[in-house]
Each structure stands twice: as structure tokens, then as C-alpha cells.
């Protein structure tokens, strides 16, 4: 056991339904798009605002009126409502404006709106009612330029969410190995113990287990704390072979071979010395404080035959495990995928360059390998042409931010997705890009610093990720309902459900909060 491990022995925890539990921000002031500001000098504590606001922005304890909870506010759209607090305030002590921090939040891919709406989903398990864009970012291409083209009326009006299946079978090879069926078409991406805290891993694995899906350990060993969740673990074998043992391979239902990582394609992994705490070092069988390099590539694999030998080795060690191959997106990504199929992989995972990582050179993240949006249809079509599409499970990862990204990736040709950053955002990552520096994430997510780890409990984290998963499941079912599809499997490769704004000039609206 590691010294700062959080023990969480809940025998009853496992797959099952999830009812969202409101799980507010860990910090005193939740961030928001709009800021309701009360001028204390003018306020007469009359409580009118508390009475009019139906969203709970204004609350009181006894006679004292608390600071407004701005993130619950509708924003300027409220001006049209008859309960607009600013108008009702007798001494005109209230004002509403854009929160200055809003303009500093986020980036092109994870815009402030996406961060805020993901936080909302993690808190409530529902879509935000305020004017937040929850589907796309602002990168100006790829997923952000694709829209679902819903029919004006759902084809099957009787179709209810309960009738729609999100199940994803992983073994499509019929090779006698066990089937693993996930209840949602995504699983958690590899983040090693060391790059993120044990609390982060436990929160994610508990959510994965509740939603009957998987979590990849990343290349950092298999912490004992994960043993109760063995059936929901994918363990990673990467080039450094850190923490890989026969025992770890025999525990799990799927083993992931990491050939490359989208954020640093063609380059090895690097865990900075500061993050190699005694616990991390023990897990990885190395020395505390000394940086760990994971070389690139596997020097034992220079051909599809070598590749097959590797997979056979895993299959031999664990006869019930499925094998997944994680590759990046070079020009010949389609050939790599076919090669992986012939080597015996059940799952081919394409990792795009937008994915999160502990530390990667900016030049690699931006410039090396093609965007995942191009790679998915390229590989899908090639596998179809080769006649082996039905035997491969194609997983997209590296920049899947929203339920809409999941649905779009599937419509482009993937079977499912791996998500990582979105879960960290649910745990209140603000994408400050400082995961790697010093003690690591000062928000207590991507760190192993004992003091920082304490900023987050497993209980809180589990609920946040479960709420997010709940909101995503609802959105995916709603998208399928509008197309009259009973299963997510029907959406695979259906590019006709999408329009690309560069090729389509009429306005398209795919906001599922509105309409039928």
C-alpha cells in the first residue's frame, strides 16, 4: 500500500444504474460565464432577489444574504424573464456582467464554454440551461465543423431512451476468447499512476465500473488499490515496460499495447524527476527523484511479424485477455491498422494529437501526425475495403471532449472512443498546461504530491465522473433517438448523419436541448 492511499472498501460498488448526485465545485468560488455582482454598500438585505430567482443564484442564511452563486445564473437572457433580479432589486444593488476570468479560460479546443458546461454536467449530470456551448470548441476544423443533421421529426416517435442500447462489444474476432461488452461506447484512457494521483485513478475506475466500462492504467504499474476493480481494468504495456509483470497481465480482461501516443507521436514518454515520488518509484521499480524515460519505439518490434509475436506473448500469459493496440496517426495509419489486425489485435486504437499528456514538446503536439478526424474515416474505409472491418473494434482517442465528439467519431467510422481529458475536466482541470511542472497539478489531479493529492477525495471524484458519464449517455441516446436508431452500433460509419460546415451553407442546429 502506498502511504497516502485512500482506502475505499465499498463491497457493493460495481456496475449498476446511476442517479446523478449534485456534486459542487471543490473550491469556494465556482467559475462562471456571467457574474452577478452585489454592491454591498447599496444592498439593504431585503431578500427580494432570493424570492424572485428560481435558479438559486441568491440564497440566505437567516437574515444574511449570501454571495450570489453566479454560475447558476441564466445570464443576460434572463433580462426577458419576469424574475430578473437586477430589475427587481429595490436599491439597484445588483448588476450582471461577463466574468473577467471567462475571457481568460480555455483554449481553441477546450473553450471556456466547454469547460464550464463539462463542469456543469459533472455537478448535476444534466446539460446546462444557460447559454453555454456544450457540443463543440473553437478549433475551426474537424469535430468543431461537423454538425449532426437531425431529421425534422424523429423517425420513430415511440422510441424511448430506455429502448436505446449504447453497448459496445470489444471482441469481434470470434477467436474463442471471452467477449467483453461495455455498456457505454467509451472507456477511460491510459493515465499512469505518477502522472495522475491515485485519487484521480480511483475516481475514474469507480465511475468506469459503475457504468460497466474499462479504465486503462497507462504505463505506470498496477496500483494495489485497483485490485477490487480488476474486471474493469485495461493494463498497458508500453515501451518502458514500467510496472509490467505477469501478475498484472493475468489480472485483466484487456491488455493495451502502446506503440505510440498521439500527443507525442514518434517520441518516448517522460516522467519528470519531481513527479517520481517514493510511491511512484516503487510501483515502477525505479529510484525516487530520477526522471523516467520511456523509449520510442519498441526496439523488439520492427515488422508485423514481430508485432504478432508481442501480442502472442500476451495471449499466452493471459488466455482470457483481449489485446488492444494503441497507435498514432502517421500517413500510413491505415496500413498500421491492418497490420495490427493481422498481428491478432482485437481492438485498434487510433490516438490523435489533441490528447492530454503529462508532458510533451509543443512542437510534437501541434505538428506531428494527422488529426484524428481524418484518421478515423481513412482507417474505417480501408478496413472495409480489406473486408476485415467486421472483425476489428476501432477506438478513437486523443481529443474526444464531449458526447458529441463521441457520436461524431462513431459516425465517421469508429466503434467507440477513449476519453481522458474530459474526465480530468470533470474533476476541475482548467487546462493550465502545468501538469508537468514542479509538484504537478496544483488542483490536485495530475500530481503525486501528498499535500496536493489531498485536495480531492475519491468520493467527490467518483460522483463527478459518474455525473459526466450520465450526461453523456443521455446525450448519445438523445442523438440516436432523433435518428430513430435503437443502438449505437447503427451509427458506425454513418457520415450521412453529419454535415461539414465547409461544404454546407445552410444553417444547421443540432442543440438537443431544443426541439422534439
Amino acid at each position: 500500500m502506498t502511504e497516502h492511499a485512500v482506502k475505499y472498501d465499498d463491497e457493493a460498488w460495481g456496475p449498476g444504474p446511476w442517479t446523478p448526485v449534485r456534486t459542487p465545485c471543490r473550491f469556494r468560488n465556482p467559475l462562471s460565464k456571467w457574474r452577478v455582482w452585489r454592491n454591498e454598500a447599496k444592498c439593504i438585505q431585503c431578500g427580494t432577489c432570493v424570492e424572485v430567482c428560481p435558479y438559486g443564484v441568491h440564497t440566505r442564511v437567516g437574515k444574511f444574504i449570501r454571495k450570489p452563486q453566479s454560475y447558476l445564473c441564466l445570464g443576460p437572457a434572463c433580462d426577458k424573464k419576469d424574475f430578473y433580479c437586477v430589475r427587481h432589486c429595490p436599491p439597484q444593488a445588483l448588476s450582471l456582467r461577463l466574468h473577467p476570468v471567462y475571457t481568460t479560460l480555455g483554449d481553441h479546443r477546450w473553450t471556456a464554454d466547454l469547460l464550464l458546461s463539462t463542469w456543469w454536467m459533472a455537478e448535476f449530470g444534466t446539460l446546462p440551461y444557460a447559454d453555454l456551448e456544450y457540443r463543440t470548441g473553437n478549433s475551426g476544423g474537424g469535430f468543431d465543423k461537423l454538425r449532426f443533421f437531425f431529421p425534422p421529426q424523429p423517425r420513430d416517435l415511440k422510441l424511448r431512451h430506455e429502448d436505446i442500447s449504447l453497448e459496445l462489444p470489444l471482441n469481434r474476432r470470434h477467436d474463442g476468447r471471452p467477449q467483453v461488452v461495455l455498456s457505454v461506447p467509451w472507456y477511460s484512457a491510459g493515465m499512469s499512476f505518477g502522472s495522475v494521483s491515485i485519487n484521480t485513478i480511483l475516481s475514474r475506475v469507480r465511475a468506469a465500473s459503475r457504468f460497466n466500462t474499462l479504465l486503462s492504467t497507462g504505463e505506470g504499474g498496477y496500483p494495489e488499490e485497483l485490485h477490487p476493480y480488476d474486471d474493469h481494468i485495461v493494463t498497458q504495456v508500453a515501451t518502458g515496460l514500467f510496472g509490467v509483470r505477469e501478475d498484472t497481465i493475468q489480472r485483466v480482461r484487456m491488455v493495451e499495447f502502446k506503440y505510440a501516443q498521439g500527443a507525442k507521436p514518434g517520441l518516448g514518454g517522460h516522467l519528470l524527476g519531481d513527479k517520481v515520488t517514493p510511491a511512484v518509484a516503487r510501483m515502477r521499480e525505479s529510484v525516487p527523484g530520477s526522471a523516467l524515460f520511456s523509449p520510442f519505439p519498441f526496439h523488439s518490434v520492427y515488422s508485423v511479424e514481430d508485432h504478432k509475436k508481442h501480442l502472442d506473448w500476451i495471449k499466452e500469459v493471459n488466455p482470457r485477455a483481449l489485446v488492444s493496440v494503441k497507435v498514432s496517426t502517421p500517413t500510413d495509419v491505415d496500413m498500421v491498422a491492418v497490420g495490427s489486425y493481422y498481428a491478432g489485435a482485437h481492438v485498434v486504437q487510433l490516438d490523435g494529437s489533441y490528447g492530454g499528456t503529462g508532458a510533451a514538446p509543443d512542437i510534437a503536439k501541434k505538428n506531428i501526425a494527422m488529426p484524428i478526424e481524418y484518421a478515423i474515416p481513412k482507417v474505417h474505409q480501408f478496413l472495409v475495403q480489406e473486408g476485415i472491418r467486421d472483425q476489428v473494434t476501432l477506438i478513437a482517442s486523443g481529443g474526444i471532449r464531449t458526447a458529441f465528439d463521441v457520436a461524431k467519431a462513431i459516425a465517421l467510422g469508429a466503434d467507440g472512443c477513449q476519453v481522458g481529458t474530459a474526465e480530468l475536466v470533470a474533476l476541475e482541470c482548467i487546462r493550465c498546461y502545468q501538469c508537468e511542472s514542479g509538484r504537478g497539478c496544483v488542483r490536485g489531479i495530475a500530481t503525486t504530491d501528498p499535500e496536493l493529492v489531498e485536495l480531492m477525495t475519491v468520493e467527490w471524484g467518483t460522483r463527478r465522473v459518474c455525473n459526466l458519464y450520465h450526461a453523456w449517455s443521455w446525450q448519445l441516446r438523445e442523438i440516436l433517438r432523433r435518428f430513430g436508431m435503437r443502438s449505437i452500433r447503427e451509427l458506425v460509419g454513418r457520415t450521412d448523419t453529419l454535415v461539414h460546415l465547409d461544404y454546407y451553407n445552410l444553417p444547421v442546429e443540432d442543440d438537443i436541448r431544443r426541439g422534439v
Partner: protein
Amino acid sequence: MPEKYHIHVRPMPSRFPSVGKTTVLDWGEGCLRCTRCVKETCPYNAFRQRGFDDRSLSDTIDTYCKNCLRCVQGCPRELVVKAANPQYRRLGDDYWTPAILQSTWFQAETGKIPVSGAGYGGPFAGPGFDSIWTDMSEIVRPTRDGIHGREYISTAIELGRKPLFLVFDAEGRLAFEPPPRVEIPLPILLADPPFSAGPVPVRRALTGAARRLRTLAVIARENVDPELAAEAEHLCLTFPTGRVDTEDPLLSRVRLVELTDHEGVLAQVEAVKRRHPGLVTMIKVPADEGAAARVSELARAGAEAIHLFCDHHARGFLGARERHLKDLLRTVHLTLVEDNLRDTVTLLASGGIALAEHVAKAIICGADGVIVDLPLLLALECRLCRACQRGGRCPVDIDSLDPVWGTQRQVNLMGAWNHQLLEVLGAMGLREVRRLRGEVGRAMFVEDLEREIFAPLFSRPGPEGFRREGE
């Protein structure tokens, strides 16, 4: 194996506080005087370290703040807020963006590659160099580990004319005198920036950097004072149209000269070569609509090296004003290939090379190497405000810089660039930068990916809106 090239970087602190993308605003009014104020518990100690810089009259907190928002989210009265910094947005221009400036300052200060956590957060693609992705090797093609030093990747190039074949005499000796070549260990020449508040110290720093990097500093002949002349072997003299004194004693001490293209340039090259046969000459050709034909003509006539230059935003001139350096380079390179001249001549490109990735991409598009100028000025903390061009005061006192400091900053920047070039080469599995030239097959262009992948899926024939009825 050639001697291993290593650039010795060492931290060289900036003289002025950096301009943060966002800035901290805090109000004292209404403060509750908590016993544990968020400013005391800042994980980065930004509030303890902050000071006031009396030269730029600004708070130095942006240098320490890493945007974790713990203070913003922790202050009970919400008195601490982060807001966009208007000064940051005013930096540079739409090509030399604030992000490029900041990244360059970081590299010049530390000599390190910019590394960050979390994924890529930038735009999907963009104009110019941002429309290219480089390839990587996977499974069946080995990569090279140049960065951690386990494998050697050469970044050396040779400037000069190359014979297409060798001729030997009966005794097996080379039957002709091979043309002179200049080998530089990194594919970058350093050019004197076209403006700066302190041209003299900037040139000193630049020459020092050229010496340390074993490359050349491209400086106009008229600007070479006796002190610089002492460093002649690290200089490439550049001459404006039609003015070369072949008896200039400096010519016998430099290895490369650059002559500006004009009608009589070939005669000029011949005159220089007759007097100084060991000298390599380079002809500076503007990237206009006739550049490809002109470069081909010059190469056929025996030019040794060509310098194709664009403006500072990587745009061509005259009829090629709308074209980007990458496209112009591809045209010039392909024309030379088709005319069977490509391997005879060295092609260098300049204009708008702002980041390390631009070096790799320019080479992919057909250049042998690049010439950089503005990034070297940025390394000296220049803010590209261009006040010096208007006769104003330099906000970062470039006129009074210490050339030793400046040299190390420029060496740091080039060291970081070289490492990034190694990252790109390593990921592609290339062992030398010369192999990268013109390798468009190891790159992905957004227009090709759109045409091959998205267009067949999303551009449908028929009138707009027909699907709506069809649904």
C-alpha cells in the same frame, strides 16, 4: 561517424518582466483580512515573489503566475480576479503572434524545448506552415532517438555547387577540382535583422552566436566594422545590387558571400569567383511569380547557392504576393527537380521563419536550409513594437545590450530549435536533415487530406437543402 554536434545552452535570464497572457487584478477594498489569505497560500508563491519593475513600470507577478486560479476561486470576497492582459494582445502582429513571441523568449532564456502538459489546444489547422503535419514512423519503420542521445542524427548541410557525378583519371584520382563547399552543422544561417534599436550590439551578438554555433552570420558588407571583420570566417557578406569590390581584402577571409539578383549578377559571380576561387557565392532571389524560372536559369548557368526570400509574413512579392513561402518553395524545388538541376545547387529560404517547426517544414517543401533574422532579434527580448523604426525608445533597451548576453540568448534559441528539429527527424525515423529535403510524402497537407478524406464524404452533388426534403 562525424563528430557529434552539440549546442551548449545555459539559462540566461531576461532583463525585463514578461508580458503575461492574463494578469492578476486584486482589490483591497472589502478585504476581510483572513488569517490564511489566498495570496499567502499561492502554490507558486506568485504573490510573495512579485515586485515592481521600475524600467517598464509594471508589476512582475505575471512572470510567476501559472494560471491555476486557486486565488480567484479561493478568496471569500472574490477580490482576486484574472483578466486578459491587453498588453499581451498588442504584442507583435497577426503573423508574429504573441504566442510565438512568448515561446521564443522562453527558449532564448532557458535553451529548452517548450514542453507542456495537457493536449494541444490550438486551432485545427491554419494558413501557411500551419497547414502541414509531419509524419512519424510506426511499427514497421524505426524511429530514431536523437534527443536522448542514443542515436546520432545529423543536422549538417553543405552550401555550394555539387557535381552530379565524379570523373577519375587513370590512376584513380579525381580528375577535376571539386567546387568549394561550406559545411554548417545546422541548417540555419543567422541574418542581421532589418531593424533594431541597437544594430551594432545586435551584430556583435549575432557574430558571436554564429561562431559558437559554427554557422555564419549574414551581414551587409557596409555594416562590417573592423571589430566584426576580425570574425570574418564566421560571416557571410551580403551585397546589394551591383556593388562588389573584388579587391576588398575581406573577401579573401570569408567563405560565403551573397549577391543580390539582377541582370548582371552572373557576370558579378564570375568576377568574384575568378579573383577568389575558394569562395562560395549565393544569389539572393526575391520570391515573385518568376522566381522558379529565374532560379532554374541561374542554376543552369552555374549558380552555387540560391537564397529565396519572402517578406516577414512569409508572403511572396509582386504577382506572388498572395502565395506563401511553402508553396513558392515547392514550386521552385519541383522546377529544379524537373530540370534535373536540383542536386547541383543549394537552396536556402527566408522570410517568416518564426518557429522551429517552420525550419522542418521549409525543408520538407524543398529548401536545403533556412536563413532566420527576426527570431534572433526576439531572442534579445525585442517586442516587435517597431518603435525603433519610428525613432522611438526601445522598451527593452536593445541599444544597451551586452553582446555576450545576447550571444548566449541566441545560442539558446538555436539550441532549442535544433533539439526540436531532432524531435521531428527522430519521429520520422530520419538520420540526417538532408534526407528531409523535399520529402513531401512524409508530410500531410491539409488540402490533400480534405480532398482525399472529407470532400468525398461531405461535398455532395445537387442543390443545397435537398437532403432536408429527402429525410
